[in-house]
């Protein structure tokens, strides 16, 4: 896409393909290119080199701006982390806990995945790395009971932040989504203003299935934000554009690696730049 080329259908098709390649999804890509055509007309743009910049601007507008801060006024601030299997929930919790600890906060973790082999061990190792406690029961225990205990513990210890890990689950498994709803009932019974944040962890390599995941998790859990993980790979995570415009769920963090510092606050500018690389 170089300056001096004529702005024609072929150019718009090229841009549409770029978006599709980034997992934006064919319908969202078509809509974006239509908005681009409108903008080009309205602003009387003649230079083809300008096209990409306008498209970046349109995408950045959709991704929003002020919704990226976590709501941490309450004490304890209760954060629940949900998502499908293997997305990066447990690792993200370790990184997030570390960020809060670095800010001088008192952090407590809850080992809400009582199902998967060595899930509790995995979170405990992260707790050790960060220097914060983990509330846990034995494997096979009722996750709602672990959550209940962790809420009592957070109150008793006057923790600033409580982060609750949950088992990975496919959004189409009704019984597992019911289990998740039960966890949320326990939370709101014990602390009517909680949870403060429900973070849906989404793997950046995921294609259009991320839309279905977001819809069903939002229905069951009231998702307040997305953590887009594994952006250190070659996938662009473009599906979050459709998720923001259709479901109004903002991306709040991105995961860019497996180490403790590899969690960054979401930047729409960085996101759109990377989208077109």
């Amino acid at each position: 896409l170089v300056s001096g080329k004529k702005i024609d259908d072929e150019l718009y098709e090229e841009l549409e393909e770029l978006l599709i390649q980034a997992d934006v999804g064919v319908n969202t890509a078509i809509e974006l290119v239509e908005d681009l055509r409108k903008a080009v007309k309205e602003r009387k743009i003649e230079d083809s080199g300008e096209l990409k910049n306008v498209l970046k601007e349109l995408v950045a507008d959709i991704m929003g701006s002020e919704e990226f801060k976590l709501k941490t006024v309450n004490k304890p601030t209760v954060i629940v982390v949900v998502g499908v299997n293997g997305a990066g929930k447990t690792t993200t919790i370790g990184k997030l806990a570390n960020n809060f600890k670095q800010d001088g906060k008192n952090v407590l973790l809850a080992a809400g995945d009582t199902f998967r082999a060595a899930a509790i061990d995995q979170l405990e190792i992260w707790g050790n790395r960060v220097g914060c406690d983990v509330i846990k029961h034995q494997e096979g225990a009722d996750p709602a009971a672990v959550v209940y205990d962790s809420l009592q513990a957070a109150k008793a210890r006057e923790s600033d932040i409580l982060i609750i890990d949950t088992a990975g689950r496919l959004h189409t498994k009704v019984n597992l989504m019911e289990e998740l709803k039960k966890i949320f009932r326990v939370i709101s019974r014990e602390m009517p203003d909680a949870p403060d944040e429900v973070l849906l962890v989404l793997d950046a390599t995921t294609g259009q299935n991320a839309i279905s995941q977001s819809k069903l998790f939002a229905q069951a859990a009231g998702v307040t934000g997305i953590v887009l993980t594994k952006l250190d790979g070659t996938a662009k995570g473009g599906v979050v554009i459709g998720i923001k415009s259709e479901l109004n769920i903002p991306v709040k963090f991105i995961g860019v690696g497996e180490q403790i510092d590899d969690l960054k606050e979401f930047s729409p500018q960085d996101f759109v730049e990377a989208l077109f690389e």
Partner: protein
Amino acid sequence: GLAEKLQNTFQKLKGKGKLNEADVDQAMRDVRVALLEADVNFKVVKDFIKKVKERAVGQEVLQSLTPGQHVIKIVNDELTELLGGTQSKINISSKPPTVIMLVGLQGAGKTTTAGKLANLLRKQGRRPLLVAGDVYRPAAIKQLQVLGDQLSIPVYTLGDKTNPVDIAKGAMEHARSYNNDIVIIDTAGRLHINEELMEELQNVKNAVHPHEILFVMDATTGQDAVNIAQSFHERLGIDGVIITKLDGDTRGGGALSVKAVTGKPIKFAGMGEKLDALEPFHPDRIASRILG
């Protein structure tokens, strides 16, 4: 799904009189959108549409009373052919042990699949040995050990301070001493663009010469499936693919992309979190999922 869409498209087109090649183009656009929505890689879609169009502009379609049905049949045939037959066999070596190595991105389902494979092969009368080759992820070794305990299948480990090449070599010696005829090596998840870690896999391969290098991929993988599969295949030479988490509502177009770019058979489908949730891969089922 696509069948209804094509029917509507042709209904509108036939209303204008005899069908021609331009009308087929309109139908091809429907097919393209359906495949892209199903996460098939856009380059794979381009090649696929070319093939389908060649067959769809014949008189058989243009003069048919039900052109939509003809096109759907062509698409289905081409999809099923591209996805390959059901080849869910592990190639057992005449000189045991048969060595299987599982590779793939972070979180794809390798460790769980290692357990499932061991379970399956043991039911077929084999004596598998699981090998804890992930020395990076917190509690990865413990995870495999828990699975091994649940299955009463031995897990070989040298802890997480030993390098995976030595672990693999040690496992081979152990297998020979204890008469394990299958060795299943679980490896750490890694990015295809991580030079150092891809080289580590190369080194494990050179040390123990796996008979089967199986690429494990999440069925929800989108456009990047082509990059990922191609990189793993070029670096290691994969022998087959296992697609996991097909028990959800993902259309699974990434599977088509992987098959198209590597030419290697998709051998198994992961259909759940339990250790018996591994099925032979059925191309016709994925084809109908992709078509919606």
